[in-house]
């Protein structure tokens, strides 16, 4: 109950990562990713990315988990996307949504999860409708690690968020 069998868990992780369109070969498939302490070779591993189908014609949000595999803190400084003209990392503190002017810090050997009510990437001035089944390309730029490309599936408005193996 506490923990599913490791094999099933790893398979789930692989399935989720595959679904999430994780790219750039960031995760060693055999170990099921950094959540299980696998030896990730890339400094930054992004998993569980998704964009919820927006109800607004103008604005959408992207979510993902960023894992910093290195021994030094890094910062997500900017995001670019093909889905809209602008993308920015936002924090939801209480009732207020604010742009993170200095970026989102990802502590060493830690992960940060963007999720509703906490952090999200706001995509504005959408270039077209986003429908489930489509993928949104995101280029995340980190202060130290540089650019990391992610392909995030669009999920339906009422669909549950993908569960992320790498979150903790």
């Amino acid at each position, binding site marked *: *109950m*506490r*923990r*599913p069998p490791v094999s099933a868990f790893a398979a789930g992780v692989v399935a989720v990562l595959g679904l999430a369109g994780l790219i750039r070969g960031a995760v060693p498939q055999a170990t099921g990713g950094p959540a299980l302490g696998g030896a990730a070779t890339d400094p930054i591993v992004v998993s569980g990315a998704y964009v*919820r*189908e*927006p*109800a*607004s*014609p*103008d*604005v*959408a*949000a992207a979510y993902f988990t960023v894992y910093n595999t290195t021994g030094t803190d890094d910062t997500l400084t900017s995001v670019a996307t093909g889905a809209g003209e602008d993308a920015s990392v*936002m924090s*939801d503190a209480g*009732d*207020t*949504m604010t742009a993170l002017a200095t970026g989102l810090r990802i502590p060493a050997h830690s992960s940060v999860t963007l*999720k*509703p*009510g906490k952090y*999200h990437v*706001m*995509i504005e001035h959408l270039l077209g409708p986003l429908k489930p089944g489509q993928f949104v390309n995101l280029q995340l730029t980190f202060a130290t690690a540089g650019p990391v490309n992610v392909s995030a599936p669009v999920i339906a*408005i*009422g669909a549950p968020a993908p569960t992320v193996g790498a979150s903790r």
Partner: protein
Amino acid sequence: MKRIALLMVALGVLAGCSSSKGGGGQPATSELNNQPKVGQYQGFGLTPPLPRPSFTLTDTSGKPFAFSQTAGRPTLLYFGYTHCPDVCPTTMADIAQAVNEVPAAVRDKTEVVFVTTDVKHDTGPVIAAWLQHFDTALPNRFVGLTGSQGQIDAAQAAAHVELAEDGGQTHAADVLLYGADDYAHVKYLQSDNEADQIAHDLPLVAKEASP
């Protein structure tokens, strides 16, 4: 799985704290009797309960809508804005999921009212187009309301919700649930299990007898 279990433990601890606010030991029986309804809800209990507010705004077809039209029916009230990427649509989706999950007898009576806090951008047609992403599968379509800034401020004050600022983009994220007795005994905040909380509590407030 593990995280859900931990969360439930955390909630259990919180519930324990709130029922023994006298500072240790068992709460007095009289204290429990004064708050008989708080413990049964999964949302945030409201003591004292908030009466169903009175305000009249404009619906998405341009007609006046008095909130008192929902009297006697379980009603979810939410203030937000459509040009909102994160909390507002997630909250509306949670509400829709919850209403869809409760027994049909409750679902058929339940009303959902969305009031914009961004009167400049959110015209009737904009709100209608936004709401139809959430409510098409439900027997009662969501009511979308707008008005002048003064009317919206007055509605928020009547509902005891913090006034929105920054052109409506900083707003209270509370979802208020009014029962058949025309009081809100419980409210919700965006969270991973908001839909489950609402679905749990809706049938309870649908049965609240009038005071």
